[in-house]
C-alpha cells in the first residue's frame, strides 16, 4: 500500500545531472534513449555526407579509399545500432507503460543500465576511427577474411557489438517482463495496442538474434588473436560459415528495425483516419508470421556465395513468402484509411509516407528474392536503394511519425505544424532524389561500396549527392521543432488529437512524472 505521503514524495522530479545518471523512471530513460538516438542519427548522417561528397564526381576528391570504406562501415553500424534500435527502445520506454496502464517498466534499474551501456559502446566505435589502422573497413557485415586483416579498430568494433548486444538483450527482457506482467486489469493480450504487440515480437527477435551475432563476432575475435581458424580455410575453417551465422542474425535484425515502426503507424493512422484499425487480429498474426519467416530466409543475402541448387530454391521460396504477411499489413493500413475521415497533420503525413515508400522497398525486395535476377542485383546500388527505402522509409519515417504524434504528450506543447510540414516535405523529396536514382545505378552495373566509379554512372551520382545533402541538413529542422516544443508553444490537451484511442491519452499532457500508480480499469 502506498501512502499519500509517499506518493507526494515520488512526484518530485529529481534535479541536475544525477537525475539522468541514476534515473529509473521510464520516461526519463525513454528521453535519454531518444536523444541518444537522434545524436547518433546526426553523426551517422554526417558520415553519409562524407560518402556522398566523395561520390559527387568520379575520381578521388575528398577522402582516400580506406577512409571511404571506414565511413561506409561505421555509417551503417551507427545508424542501425546507434540510431534506429535505441530510438525504438526509447519509444518503448516512454509509451509501453503508459499504453498498458503500468506505473513503470518491470525492471527499472536494469533499464537504467541498458541505456548507459550505449554511450560507452558507441564511443568505442567512434574511437576506432582514430586508432592506428583506422576503424572497421570491411562493411557493417564484417565478413572475414577481410575483417581479419583490419587493425585494432576491428577489435573495438567487436567489443562495441558485444556491449550493444548486451544492452539490446537487457532492454528486450525488460520489455517482455513489463508487457507480460504489468498490464492493467482487463488489458488482455488481444486488447494491447499494436505498438505494444509489435514490440513484444521484436523483443523476442532480439533475444533470439543478438546472441548469434555476439557468437559470430567472438569467433572473429579469437580468429584474429588466439589462433583459432573458424573462418580461415588455411586452418580448416570456412569463411562462408561466418556469412551464414551473420545473416541468421542479420535477417531477424531487419525486422527488429521495422516491426516497431509498423506498430507506430498502426497507432497513428487510425487516429487521423478517425476509424478503428482494420484487421487488428490479422495485423498481430502477420507480425508474428514475419518474425517467424525472418529466421528461415537468411541466405537470400548471400545467393552468390555458391550454394547448392536446393539451398537456393529453398531460400528463394521462403523469401517470397514474406511478401504475403507484409502485403496483409499494407492492405490493412490502406483499408483503415478507406472510408475514413482523414486529416493530414505531420504524424499522418509521415505514416502515409512510411506505408507508401516502404511499399516501394518491399516491391524491390520481392525482385531481389528472385534468385536468378539477384545474381545481377547483388552488391549493386540497387541493393543500396532497396534497403534505404526499407530502413529509412520504414523505420526512420515511422519514428518521425511517432515523434510528431507523441511530442505533445511528452512536452505538453503542440509542435510547430508549419515547421513539421517543412521537415516532412524536404525529407520526402530529398530522400527520393537521393535514393530513387540509385535503383538505376544498380541496374546499370554500379557495385556498392566503391569510392570511385566509371563515367557512365556520373549523372545519377550528382543527383543522388545533391539529394543527400538536402536530406541531411533537413533533419536539423526536427531538432528545432523538438527544442521549440520543449521550450513552449500552444498547450496540448490530454487527448491532443481528435479522440485518439489508447490509455496514454487519458493522462495529462505533459505526462506526469509518474503515471498509473493505480492501475486503470480497461473494459
Amino acid at each position: 500500500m502506498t501512502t499519500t505521503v509517499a506518493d507526494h514524495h515520488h512526484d518530485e522530479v529529481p534535479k541536475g545531472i544525477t537525475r539522468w545518471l541514476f534515473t529509473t523512471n521510464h520516461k526519463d530513460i525513454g528521453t535519454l534513449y531518444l536523444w541518444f538516438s537522434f545524436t547518433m542519427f546526426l553523426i551517422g548522417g554526417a558520415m553519409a555526407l562524407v560518402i556522398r561528397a566523395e561520390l559527387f564526381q568520379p575520381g578521388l576528391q575528398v577522402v582516400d579509399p580506406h577512409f571511404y570504406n571506414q565511413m561506409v562501415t561505421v555509417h551503417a553500424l551507427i545508424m542501425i545500432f546507434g540510431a534506429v534500435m535505441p530510438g525504438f527502445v526509447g519509444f518503448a520506454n516512454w509509451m509501453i507503460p503508459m499504453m498498458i496502464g503500468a506505473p513503470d517498466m518491470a525492471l527499472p534499474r536494469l533499464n537504467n543500465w541498458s541505456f548507459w551501456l550505449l554511450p560507452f559502446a558507441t564511443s568505442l566505435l567512434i574511437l576506432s576511427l582514430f586508432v592506428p589502422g583506422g576503424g572497421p573497413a570491411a562493411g557493417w557485415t564484417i565478413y572475414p577474411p577481410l575483417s581479419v586483416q583490419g587493425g585494432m579498430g576491428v577489435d573495438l568494433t567487436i567489443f562495441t557489438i558485444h556491449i550493444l548486444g548486451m544492452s539490446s538483450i537487457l532492454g528486450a527482457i525488460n520489455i517482455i517482463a513489463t508487457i507480460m506482467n504489468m498490464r492493467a486489469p482487463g488489458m488482455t493480450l488481444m486488447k494491447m495496442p499494436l505498438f505494444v504487440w509489435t514490440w513484444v515480437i521484436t523483443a523476442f527477435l532480439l533475444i533470439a538474434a543478438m546472441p548469434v551475432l555476439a557468437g559470430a563476432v567472438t569467433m572473429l575475435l579469437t580468429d584474429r588473436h588466439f589462433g583459432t581458424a573458424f573462418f580461415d580455410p588455411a586452418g580448416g575453417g570456412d569463411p562462408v560459415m561466418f556469412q551464414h551465422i551473420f545473416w541468421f542474425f542479420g535477417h531477424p535484425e531487419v525486422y527488429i528495425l521495422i516491426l516497431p515502426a509498423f506498430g507506430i503507424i498502426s497507432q497513428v493512422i487510425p487516429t487521423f483516419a478517425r476509424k478503428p484499425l482494420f484487421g487488428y487480429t490479422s495485423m498481430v498474426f502477420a507480425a508474428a508470421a514475419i518474425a517467424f519467416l525472418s529466421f528461415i530466409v537468411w541466405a537470400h543475402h548471400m545467393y552468390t556465395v555458391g550454394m547448392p541448387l536446393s539451398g537456393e530454391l529453398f531460400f528463394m521460396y521462403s523469401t517470397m513468402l514474406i511478401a504475403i504477411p507484409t502485403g496483409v499489413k499494407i492492405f490493412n493500413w490502406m483499408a483503415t484509411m478507406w472510408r475514413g475521415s482523414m486529416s493530414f497533420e505531420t504524424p499522418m503525413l509521415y505514416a502515409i509516407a512510411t506505408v507508401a515508400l516502404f511499399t516501394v522497398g518491399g516491391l524491390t525486395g520481392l525482385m531481389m528474392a528472385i534468385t536468378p535476377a539477384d545474381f545481377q542485383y547483388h552488391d549493386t546500388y540497387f541493393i543500396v536503394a532497396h534497403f534505404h527505402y526499407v530502413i529509412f522509409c520504414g523505420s526512420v519515417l515511422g519514428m518521425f511519425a511517432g515523434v510528431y504524434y507523441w511530442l505533445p504528450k511528452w512536452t505538453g506543447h503542440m509542435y510547430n505544424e508549419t515547421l513539421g510540414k517543412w521537415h516532412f516535405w524536404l525529407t520526402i523529396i530529398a530522400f527520393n532524389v537521393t535514393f530513387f536514382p540509385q535503383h538505376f545505378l544498380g541496374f546499370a552495373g554500379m557495385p556498392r561500396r566503391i569510392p570511385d566509379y566509371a563515367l557512365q554512372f556520373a549523372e545519377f551520382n550528382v543527383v543522388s549527392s545533391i539529394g543527400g545533402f538536402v536530406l541531411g541538413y533537413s533533419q536539423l529542422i526536427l531538432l528545432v521543432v523538438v527544442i521549440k516544443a520543449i521550450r513552449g508553444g500552444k498547450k496540448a490537451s490530454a487527448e491532443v488529437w481528435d479522440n485518439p484511442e489508447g490509455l496514454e491519452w487519458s493522462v495529462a499532457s505533459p505526462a506526469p512524472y509518474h503515471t498509473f500508480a493505480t492501475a486503470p480499469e480497461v473494459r
Partner: protein
Amino acid sequence: MIINRLKHLLSAGTALVSMLVLWAVPASVQAEWGLNLQRPVTEIARVQYDLHMLIMYIVTVIGIIVFAIMFYSIFKFRKSKGAQPAKFSHSTKAEVIWTVIPTLILIVMAVPSTKALLLMEDTTESDMVVKVTGYQWGWHYDYMEEDVSFFSKLTTPQSQITGTETKGENYLLEVDNHLVLPVGQKVRILLTARDVIHAWWVPQLGGKKDAIPGFINEMWIRADETGTFRGQCAELCGKDHGYMPIVVDVVDESQYQAWLDGQRNKG
C-alpha cells in the same frame, strides 16, 4: 479552397507518383539511358534480363494499384471535405482475397525463376575451363587445359583518378591483359581467391559469383556474339575494391586459337 485542396493533394505525394512514372518508362528507352540492366549477350544474362523485366512489370503494376488506391482514399476520404468515418474494422472476405491473390502471383513468379535457376546451375558438358583467382587487387586467369595463365590489373593511370588528367572513355574499366574467350563455346568458370572474398562480375555475360579463398565456385558462360565486355569486382575486398575491373574479349574461334598460340609463345 481549391488551392487548399490542391495543396493537400500535392501534399499527398506528387513525388511518389512521378517516381512510379519514371519506373514505368519502357525498357527500350531505359537501355539507351543506362537505366536498366545492360544488354545481355549470353543465354543466362538473357534469361536473367527477361525474368527481371517480368518481375519488374509485375511489381510496378502492384505498386501502381496500391498507390492509386491510397491516393484515391487520400483525396476522397478527407475530413476537410466532410467525409464521415465508417465504423468497420474487419472483413474476412477482403482479407482472404488479399492473401490469396498475392500467393497466386508469387506462384506465377516462382515457375520461371525456378527454371532459370536450373539452367544457371547446369555447368555440365562444358567445352573449356578457365580458373579465375581474385587477389588484392586484381585477377589471375588460368586456362586449365591450355597451359596459359596471366594476371590482369587495372591500367587507368593514377593521374586520371586524382583528376590531374582527363578521364579516358573506359575510366576504371580497363586492364592490361584481357580475358579472351571463344564465341559460342560453353566456358566453365572456376572461381577462387588468394586472400579475401571477391566477386567476379561482367553484367552482360550474366550474374556474378563470389571468389572465396579455400573454395572453388563455378559458373558458366556461352557468349552469343563477339565484342569486349567490362565488369568489376562486386564484393568489398579492401582498399582498392573499386579498382579491380574485368575485361573480357569474346572472339571467333580462329582468333582465339591465334591468341592462344601467341600466349604460349610468350611463356
